[in-house]
């Protein structure tokens, strides 16, 4: 089962509360600390949804900017990341909606991803891995926003059901059923995509 190795990059709750309080007082350095701590996680969510480094950069910037502007309304003591992830998802989806097109697929991340995960030096295998990723990404991009959000938080970010529930502001039971439907949908789309490509 999934462990949560990335969680180590989150701030300690106590420190987080302190930084948030300072940021609410207008301390940009404290907020800068928050940015540096969470930007990778936010960027991952953004990239998962947009599949484009430039877009993910923009979304990350916009997310933190909005968070900064709204930090006064954040309740100290709550975990910060679900809140950030929620903003990031909203920004990402509205970016895609505005653009009315599927996310771009740049070549380099695919190649890199292939190299990273295939664990092989064989170019043929790498290429195959890249192709597989591309297929999955396309199937994922065809899902509804709800499903994409829940999958990004669970699979990419490895959040617990409670954290997902808090991020999306839905009950835990809904997270469970939505995830299972999202996976089923993804599988069936993958089947379709594969069928087409063969």
């Amino acid at each position, binding site marked *: *089962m*999934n462990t949560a190795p990335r969680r180590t990059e989150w701030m300690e709750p106590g420190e987080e509360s302190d930084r948030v309080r300072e*940021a*609410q*007082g*207008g301390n*940009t350095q404290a*907020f*800068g600390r928050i*940015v*540096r701590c969470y*930007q*990778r996680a936010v*960027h*991952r969510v953004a*990239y*998962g949804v947009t*599949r484009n*480094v430039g877009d*993910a*950069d923009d979304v*990350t*910037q916009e997310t*933190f*900017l909005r968070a*900064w*502007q*709204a*930090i*006064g*309304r954040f309740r100290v003591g709550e975990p910060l990341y679900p809140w950030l992830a929620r903003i990031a998802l909203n920004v990402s989806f509205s970016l895609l909606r505005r653009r009315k097109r599927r996310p771009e697929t740049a070549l380099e*991340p695919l190649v*890199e*991803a292939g190299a*990273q*995960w295939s664990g092989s030096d064989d170019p043929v295998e790498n290429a195959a*891995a890249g192709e*597989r*990723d*591309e297929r*999955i*990404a396309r199937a*994922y991009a065809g899902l509804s926003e709800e499903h994409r959000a829940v*999958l*990004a938080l*669970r*699979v*990419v970010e490895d959040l*617990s*059901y409670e954290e997902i529930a808090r991020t999306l502001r839905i009950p835990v039971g809904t997270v*469970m*059923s939505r*995830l*299972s*439907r999202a*996976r*089923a949908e*993804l*599988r069936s789309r*993958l089947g379709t995509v594969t069928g087409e490509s063969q």
Partner: protein
Amino acid sequence: MKHLNADELSALHDGALDPETRARAERHLGECAECRAALETLGRLDESLAAALAHDPGDAHFESLAARIEERIAAAGAPEARAARGWLGGLGASLRRPRTLAWVGSALALVVVAGVVLINLQSGENAALRDRMLAQRAGQAAGRERADETGRAQHAEERAGAPAPVPEPAPVPAPGAASGAASAPIPGAGPASENAQAVVPATDKTRASAPAAGGAEGSATPSAALRAREEGGKPSPAQATTPAPGAPAPHREAAPRRAYEVKRGPSGEDVPARKPEGRFAQPPPPAPRAASGDVTQSAKPRLALPLDGQPAPRLDEESKKDLSAATPESTPPPLGKTLAGRRTAELPPEPEKPKVEAGAQAAGLLVCGDVKDALGRPVASATVTLVTFGRGVSTDAGGHFCLEVPPGDQTLSVIAVGYKPLRREVHAAPEVPALALTLEAVSALDQGRSGSVSWFRGPPQATFPQEESADDAFRTAPRALQAAASGAARLTEAAVRSKSAPRFEAAAADWERVRARAKDGPFEVAARYRIAEARFRAWELEPTANRAFAATDALTSFLVRAPIGVERDRAAVWLDRVRR
């Protein structure tokens, strides 16, 4: 045996089942190969999805991203302070919520609509009253004129001037002479009534509205009748044109008909000037125009003035005076004509002031000119733009252009391929001679130093005062590139200040983006120089093998493209150092 359903499988895979369900599910898995396979499929699916959706752009990327975010946050200013949100703050915050805002907006709109409806209703009720008032004012205005002449007191009119809208038979038959007094206060009819312009008779019939000799129908207004009686039939100057006594008495509505425009009188009373339409069979065509000061325009063509007339406001005054002077002795009907005639006679083709033409409001003046290069050769196809309006034209083969320009001081911008952009302040006035605009060619030698040749355009420096952060080499770059470059330049400055190698790397990464944007353009080499510099500084501060490699790479790729100059020499020295 009951299989695990999709939700359970998915939750089991995520480790999110409660202990009891989980124990049951695991027992089931032990005996059901099908469910085990399904769970395994889920695992594989997640794994490949994670692989497909994840991408780590690296530390340098995040260093520069964080720097950019911090920059934007610093620019955005302080967050909204929580403490500051009291009652008002809460209201403000709730107003920022779109839905609340929509509700408030619709409520306000409703109130406004209700208000408008109410006002309309009321004015509808008052319409009759207003008509009566109008008639009364008209009577007063006319009466005042006469009073000026005859020294009579006004109380009579005032007393008499409030007839009910419903016709009442005139109590007293008028004497034989018809008095047009109430009927024909022509605009500016008396010298004393410059402001109390009222009432242009609509038809001859109305003009002849004075009580007829017999007063048989009894339809004339009481005020008219009264005055007529008082006057004993003495015709006022304004009556000169009234038809002879005995003309058919007007219809009952005669009184309201007479007045359709009344302005503030000298004594401060005012009646809303009302549009006559609908109430008059045929509104007198020239008079309203004349009265409203448009004389300039109708008169001008007759005068055959050259397009440069005189400033509109002046003419206005002029015409008004003219009007008041003219009317008493003139015959009313063709008022416009009269005015025109008078103007022809009296007005010397006026001031040679740069005048704002009637066309000023509508079209504009035509400013023409020639665009030439330094050697006096015409520059064809140069774009001449009116900066504030964004309107532009291209020069023809002879370098000639004509551009419509609103009067006043304007800025023209001239842009042509191969020349430096030019800005020129012009004073748009009709008499302005053709402009001679000389473009300076772009020197090919400039290209050498920084690659900062403005091939196509570049905002002239006047409009973009050098911000200290903007990188010089990019000052003439297109906007987007300029912005990117100044962002990168700021990062570089920050790196210089903090003397931090990672910051230099972040700056280099940002310059890489600038370079990507400037791809193959004139600014690419400049961006490469910046990259090389940042990479070199990073290496210089904290030398590592990777940084040495990156610096060598960046320096080399700059040097192979670099034109002769200081930057190239510097880069060569740096490369030597890195290699050693």
